[in-house]
């Protein structure tokens, strides 16, 4: 979905940052590193790290923005578990598009671990 929204914005974005957690290629997205840091802190389940990242994000995103950001993060804790706990295969209505996204994320690399 990020690839689709980026393609409609005429911005230059490198999706690999989703995998690496480094926002260099994602600077066209406002506050990209703040959002990645918030997501990372959220996923560590470390209350102090989350509190620090949340305060920082709230300063730049505002009250509405931080509520939305946490809402999206929490929402995708649900969606990944629906997929994993039912074993559904990836839909591929557009094979070329799907391949381009997988290539951009380097998902074919067998030794990938998130955060590396």
């Amino acid at each position, binding site marked *: 979905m990020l690839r689709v929204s980026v393609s409609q914005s005429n911005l230059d974005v490198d999706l690999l940052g989703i995998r690496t957690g480094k926002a260099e290629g994602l600077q066209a997205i406002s506050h990209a590193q703040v959002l990645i840091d918030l997501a990372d802190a959220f996923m560590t*389940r470390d209350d102090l790290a*989350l509190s620090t990242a949340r305060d920082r994000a709230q300063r730049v995103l505002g009250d509405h923005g931080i509520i939305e950001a946490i*809402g999206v993060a929490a929402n995708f804790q649900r969606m990944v578990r629906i997929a994993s706990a039912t074993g559904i295969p990836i839909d591929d209505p557009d094979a070329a598009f799907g391949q381009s996204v997988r290539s951009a994320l380097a998902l074919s690399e067998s030794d990938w671990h998130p955060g590396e």
Partner: protein
Amino acid sequence: MDPHFVFQLRPDIDHAFSAYRLWLSQPGQWLTGATRIEIARATRQATQCEACTAFKDHLSARSLDEQHRCCTLLPRDVEVMIHRIVNDQNRIGPSDIERLEGSLGPIYAYIELLGIVVCQFSIDEFYRGLALPEPAWPDPVDGAPDGYLPDFLESETTWVPMIPRDQVQPAEADLWPGNRGANVLRALSAVPNAVRCWQSLSAVMYLSLAGMAEMVQPPNRQLNRMQMELIAGRVSALNQCLY
């Protein structure tokens, strides 16, 4: 943050969470209200299970099942499965689901359980993310499950039966637009109310189905679409979700 402040800014989230708690408390298709609330309680407790954290490095996810911290009235194997959905979801396989039949019932009961676990977990994650106090559990509503099943189900796509894309009956016509039922939409569709429930939560925490198709800044939202997808993508990546 103060929950009153949060829900004053976003009353739609408050309403959706309240609707979820009402749904949770009622008899479902295969589970009683009391069992459904126990499933939700086990979901919340699972995040505190030290064994779950320790087991992530073990080669066999099931080798140390006896050490999970179980503290609800559910059968132990059911509660351990909830722990795995919450903490070790990538190693769940079809045989894990089949093993539950003796203590949980037909596979539709697993689908209903999964619907509750994922909805409860995402709500609890919202509260955790904003440092909000967790709300109290609702009282269960008496009554028997209705055993409802959609007219057509297929079991060829994955481990659980799902409504075929092209055989949606009028009773389930609201689950997805036309015949564009992505697998993640269909995954829980043998228990249609579970799909409706998570879609209601998604509509306020992320986007509605219609909103997902609009690749622009959602109305009345502070974050633009790329910012939302960046968070979604990073959380999914950290969950090692390739879907």
